């Protein structure tokens, strides 16, 4: 995407904005889907991420590629959503206590239940995001360690060590499945 287009997006040119959305919506959606693992929520996050990117184009310095920058925004938005899930569980707990109702299982729990035979997904869902997101970026989005480091804003060595830890866990479960 050239800088003329970025400039047009900045001033709110609707054709340029359409172009921007068309360029990134697939990738952003796939990224959100792979982190959130829920199509409806991934769609919301895609919208939020693209809007947020459009609104903060002013702060895009061109230090990384635009795609990496948009990815980085998307990852942050997805992380916030994951964090929100966690906090909502807290709230549901309080609510449950007052109303004496049972909380419904979260989407993630649901998914896990439907695929209880898939040990791999149990492990992936059980991983904390610190380890899960690098794995997804590396093996689904095919990004290099340097790109992942840029997106997550952590050193390359940290990406490597998190990938190592995740690979060790995944290796064990995949190996069992192979037997």
């Amino acid at each position: 995407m050239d800088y003329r287009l970025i400039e047009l997006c900045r001033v709110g040119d609707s054709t340029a904005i359409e172009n921007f959305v068309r360029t990134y919506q697939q990738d952003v959606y796939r990224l959100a889907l792979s982190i959130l693992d829920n199509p409806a929520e991934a769609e919301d996050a895609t919208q939020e991420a693209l809007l947020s990117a459009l609104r903060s184009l002013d702060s895009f310095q061109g230090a990384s590629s635009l795609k990496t920058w948009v990815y980085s925004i998307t990852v942050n938005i997805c992380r916030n959503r994951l964090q929100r899930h966690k906090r909502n569980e807290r709230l549901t707990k309080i609510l449950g206590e007052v109303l004496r109702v049972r909380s419904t299982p979260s989407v993630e729990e649901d998914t896990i239940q439907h695929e209880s035979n898939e040990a791999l997904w149990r492990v992936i869902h059980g991983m904390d995001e610190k380890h899960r997101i690098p794995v997804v970026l590396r093996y689904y989005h095919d990004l290099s360690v340097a790109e992942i480091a840029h997106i997550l804003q952590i050193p390359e060595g940290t990406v490597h060590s998190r990938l190592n830890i995740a690979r060790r866990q995944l290796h064990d479960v995949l190996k069992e499945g192979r037997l």
Partner: protein
Amino acid sequence: MNQISHKQAIKWIHRRLDGLLTKKQHSLLDEHLYSCDSCRAYAAEMDWLPAQLQNKFHARWDEKPGPSSKIMQQITEKARNIPMTNRISSGIKLSAGAVTLIVLAFAINFAVSQLRNSSVTATGTETVNTLQQAEDRLLAFASDQTGNSEIYTMRADGSGLTNLTNDPAYDGSPFWSPDGKRIAFESDRSGISQIYLMDADSSNVIQLTTGEAAHYLPMNIDGITYPWSPDGSKILFLEDDPGEQVWTLISQNIKDGDKIFLATGQLYYNGVSWSPDGNYIGYILDASPDSPPLDPDIHITDANGNNPRDLKKVVPHTEQLDSRYRWSSDRGSIIFTTTRSDPPHATLVTIVYEYEPSSDTLLQKDNLKEMGDWEDSQHLVTEFRSFESSGLISVWQYPDGKGNLLDVDTQCLELNIKRSPLGNLAIAAYCRDNQFRLYWANTDGSMIKQLLSLPVDATVGSPANIVWSPDDRYITFDLASSNQFNVYIVDTEKALSDPSTQPVQVLSSEDTDYSMPSWQPVMNNKVAEEEPTPQPSPQAKSRLLAFASTQNGDSDIYTMHADGSELTNLTNDPAYDGNPFWSPDGNRIAFQSDRSGSTQIYLMDADGSNISQLTNEDSNPQFDINGNTPWSPDGRRLIFSQFSNGERKSKLYSMDVDRTNKITLTNEPGEYVWPSWSPNGEYIAFISYESQERPIVPHLFVVDKNGNGLVELTGSLPMGESFSAGNYYWSKDGTSIFFMVDRNENQGPASTVYEANLDGSLNVITRASKPILDWWNGTVLESETPAPALTWLRSDGSQATLDLCRSTDQALNIAYKRSYNGNLVFGANCSASGWILYWANPDGTATSKLMDSLIPVRNDILFNITWSPDDHFIAFVSLDSDSSNVPNTLYVLDVEQARNDPSIQPLKMETSSNPSWRPIP
């Protein structure tokens, strides 16, 4: 030709997976793989994984259709105002959490007042119960108005808005410390939610919790939840263990980081509080977590975690506990309610109880038809009926049956009602004319006044959580609109005298990550200065370690932080400088140096300045080689030994740090090691070896601080028993010493733990059939060498076993060290895999591996394990015994981190003597 090691090969196989190898490394690795079958197999195994993962990921996510066409439409619509604003002002839908809060607010119509710290006067006059108070009291609150949640403070009049956190991570749940000087809060800036402290001006941010588990502060939706202990020395929080469905309630001492595990289970986020005297902690557990409906159960424990009491067990089983309680301010009791369904009409009856944890007494107070609020200390009971067509009607009922009937507004529905610290009431109501109204009532309800009225969005409703300021003057409440939460402050004093007074609006929040605001407590400056809330010790990472290293060619004394930062050469002298020991106040370092031509003892300040020579002897005075501190507990005296020239024998001495009062502790020259001061500084214990004895046997002695009354504590051991382990512990009061003894013969129990009184008399504490490695507060740690396992035998008869090394391995020997708190780190020297490091708590109920294959050379020796004063780090030294010219290696390991992730590598430094951690004064 360069040949890489297996270890290097494994490392590079991993790096290759991430494309991190240079060309040269690639070819070196290929060479190694060519000649090494096992590494080749490992590489193949590792190469297989990415393809598998890629297949699974693509199979799962590729089949999902892409984003819907709505996205384009919605974004282009919303993006129209991009140049006008850079903040999202619409379009974020209210997510589930917000709905939760709204429903929640309707549900929580009961009121539990703030911790009560002053008596209530039920005057019924028009005077507001307000203390004289500074106008610049600060409100701390969280808002995500800048895009993510930050903590702000502002004055009650809306001035002085300050963003305290200003951090891209989530920051929320602020709680002021009792002295109003610090704020505890949650943040995920480290990647996962942890508890932090900062000063009121945002300086001095300290991370209190660490590890892989998330930590959360409780939530004050009930007006009673407050994590700080009344003296501000401890803080309560919840730990969410990854993978566990339960939560753990923890009390952490802020100063030294000591944790007390109070309860584990399905804990509620509210209802966590200290009794006003700080002696008890209340919390709520779901009594039947596996079967809905929820079954709240109030528990009380002593503040030290002992003697938990389950209030469900003290009331009839036909009654169900309500999830609300309140501490009485004056009698150290807790007041709570239960509900019982009474036949034949199945009406719900509420029973108010008062329970005294100190005497385990239960009093029944009153039966109520329906509970709203109750005021125990005046024996005043308030009953509310609301919700139905009749609107908000409140009945204040006295024990004599009389009461005031207050019909506020038949068009209004009560949302929330909360008592202030001084007994006044705030009542939030939602009215059918789409107005939100806030009422104020005095203690006994003889007067009720409307404070304000605001339009509200009828479709959304309103949470209207109320928080009183500690002086009763200000109220915060929140209102939800379709896309945000708004928090308002009302000055009750003003609003009562002038009904047109408008509330001050605090920053709004779009998000559902909503946490209750916190008012800066009423601060009596004099008290706060005389007994300030304890400060946490400097952040763990900034713990200073002193050690000696030859990295500059000669041995110098260095200090560095536990993370290796700020390495500083303190001595920088061409002579030998070594064996540093921090003074108990952490201000000075005692060390040895031969800068004067012979080894003498010196003292310097923590920054290397003010070096002074303490001894000037011909006989090379020196400190204990095993790393026992020479400093007396008061920091005034030092113990050292002096060798006669050319002799192997020495004598022990003690001396004031001003070079006066040198005393001989042992008249006979000998081989004296492991000297230690009793905790009260009155006695000194040490171990003596008699080299002419075969086998060499250690003897344990004690002598008073003046060098008088030398007693051998191992002198009256029965025949055939000998002090073996070389380890001993002072009792906390310094009146006795515990030590372990092995039996030489092959009969009867193999080992005994003795408690020796300082007159030499012995008590048998326990015996065991296997060699006792160690003993701590009633728990025996058994081991055999070569040992496949360690076994903890606890005084209650329970036990735990930890297998050491790998299944095919043997543990050749074990190096271990207890921290002052009794936690244990030990290294097992495994015959095949090298040293493996483990951690255990004092009684072995929790153990974990800290690191694998630390030093893969079997003959390496690991010694001088030294705990940091907060149990957070260890430092230890390894010596490569095969090549004596190689310097020793100092390792520093973050134990807290390594317990969660054994792949964490320790910091490594070259060293020439034992390390010493700077104490927490």
